[in-house]
């Protein structure tokens, strides 16, 4: 595999995360969008690989066409020009719980090898070291969206052997159990980090390294996770962001570089 020194790269770690994630949305018809990077990913995908992508926000905006990068998932730009605005009950009950959502993005402070996520506490629940935001819609999104894509920066403290709290369920490690759960979702299918991309092994439900970002070594990946990762037999190199993708990210989606630098 070709290894380029990081200093020569003309894109940021966030930019390759965004581009690699956006390509996962090729052909997808609707996507539940989260705050921060997923917001940019979905807006990039709509302008590139998924022009018919309906952006769905848990605030009730369905088919949003934001004219500016939304500052939060409840930005007024999501309402103006949307296909529909639903009550939050309708959004969660009729759209999500009924199984109409194709893809959703989740992230968290901690993830384990089976894609379970913690967004609740670091430390014990009763006496937390860090009190995190909690579930929001993540718990039910993890259960009902047909596919879950995870975007997270990779580190020992975030890719952990054991979660401090399981907010949102991923795979159990027992595919027979997972198949019998009867959920409309199939759980997390892909993880994109600042170092690499992963899929989940069909037989074990375990996160499996698929591509290394240019300039990243296997040792870098191993040094930034709390377990010994399963590695695909044909592990490759992540395709870097194209000039077109970078132009859209830098000029249209995040001109101030809030999320991308």
């Amino acid at each position: 595999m070709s290894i380029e020194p990081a200093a020569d790269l003309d894109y940021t770690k966030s930019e390759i995360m965004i581009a690699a994630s956006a390509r996962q949305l090729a052909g997808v018809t609707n996507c539940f969008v989260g705050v921060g990077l997923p917001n940019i990913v979905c807006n990039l995908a709509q302008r590139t690989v998924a022009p018919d992508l309906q952006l769905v926000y848990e605030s009730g905006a369905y088919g949003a066409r934001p004219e500016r990068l939304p500052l939060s998932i409840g930005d007024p730009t999501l309402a103006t020009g949307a296909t529909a605005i639903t009550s939050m009950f309708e959004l969660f009950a009729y759209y999500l719980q009924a199984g109409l959502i194709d893809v959703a993005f989740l992230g968290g402070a901690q993830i384990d090898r089976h894609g379970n996520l913690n967004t609740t506490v670091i430390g014990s629940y009763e006496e937390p070291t860090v009190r995190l935001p909690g579930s929001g819609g993540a718990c039910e999104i993890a259960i009902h969206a047909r596919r879950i894509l995870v975007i997270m920066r990779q580190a020992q403290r975030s890719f952990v052997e054991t979660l401090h709290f399981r907010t949102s369920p991923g795979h159990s490690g027992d595919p027979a159990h997972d198949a019998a759960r009867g959920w409309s979702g199939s759980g997390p299918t892909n993880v994109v980090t600042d170092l690499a991309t992963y899929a989940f092994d069909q037989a074990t439900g375990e996160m499996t390294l698929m591509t290394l970002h240019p300039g990243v070594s296997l040792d870098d990946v191993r040094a930034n996770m709390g377990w010994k990762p399963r590695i695909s037999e044909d592990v490759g190199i992540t395709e870097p962001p194209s000039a077109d993708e970078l132009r859209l990210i830098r000029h249209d989606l995040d001109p101030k570089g809030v999320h991308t630098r």
Partner: protein
Amino acid sequence: MRDAVADLVRDGDTVAIEGFTHLICFAAGHEIIRQRKCDLTLARMTPDVIYDQMVAGGVASKLIFSWLGNPGVGSLHSIRRRIEDGDPAPLEIEEYSHFGMVCRYVAGASNLPFFPIRSYYESDIPKVNPLIVPMTSPYEDGTEVYVVPPLRPDVSIVHAQRADAAGDAQIWGLLGCQKEAAFAADRVIVVVEEVVDESVIRKDPNRTVIPGAIVDAVVEEPFACHPSFAQGYYDRDNTFYLAWDRIARDPGTLDAWLDEWVHGLASHGEYVEKWGDAHWDALRPGAALSGEVDYGRYA
């Protein structure tokens, strides 16, 4: 606003000031702080900066919520100090997921004893909240669900763009669970940008979210949602949301802010004046009018 809060919000009440990013009635929160209400249980899906301010203002002893953060910015530092360090006092919490909170309001509004949802499976949330209970469907398929209890606030405070004098309130843009929180509550305060003639409401009945019949007080208070927004009236003041992160990190700075911007002002009118016209002009959006529909006359 002063009278509505004095009459309808009582010490020890469960209070819901709803609005999902949109239409969060900060002016009501400030008035509750100003009147030094105490021992309130504050319910909201997303406590947001408003409950960080109210918790810092000493009005709350318990929080019921589903996502505890400063949207698009980060943490709520005053609430985190209470939870992580018990500083200056512990804060009781009861947490759900978003769908769980929405359905608590739906159950409360519908006079149901509980509401079943397909969520919480294999999550630790029910382990730390015993009010989220697994149940098997009594029908043939025997589906496992979790049930959540009804939430019936003593008082819900909801903001709307406009209402008539009777409180028939119309909202456009993100709806949050204003309707559910209002119908679930014992007492309802509706705060609006504009009180309009009844004929304005009757011309577009599909837009009416809350009927005056369940409303105890109507307050006209322009810019009452600042730094949150009112669709078509003013944008979210994101600069303030960012600034709050800095203000709330330090208890002394936070107290000084409350002294200057809440206790030091007699009313929301003074708050609007203190920010100044240029501030409000900068938050005004361009126009994007809805098309009209013809309801038809059937005389």
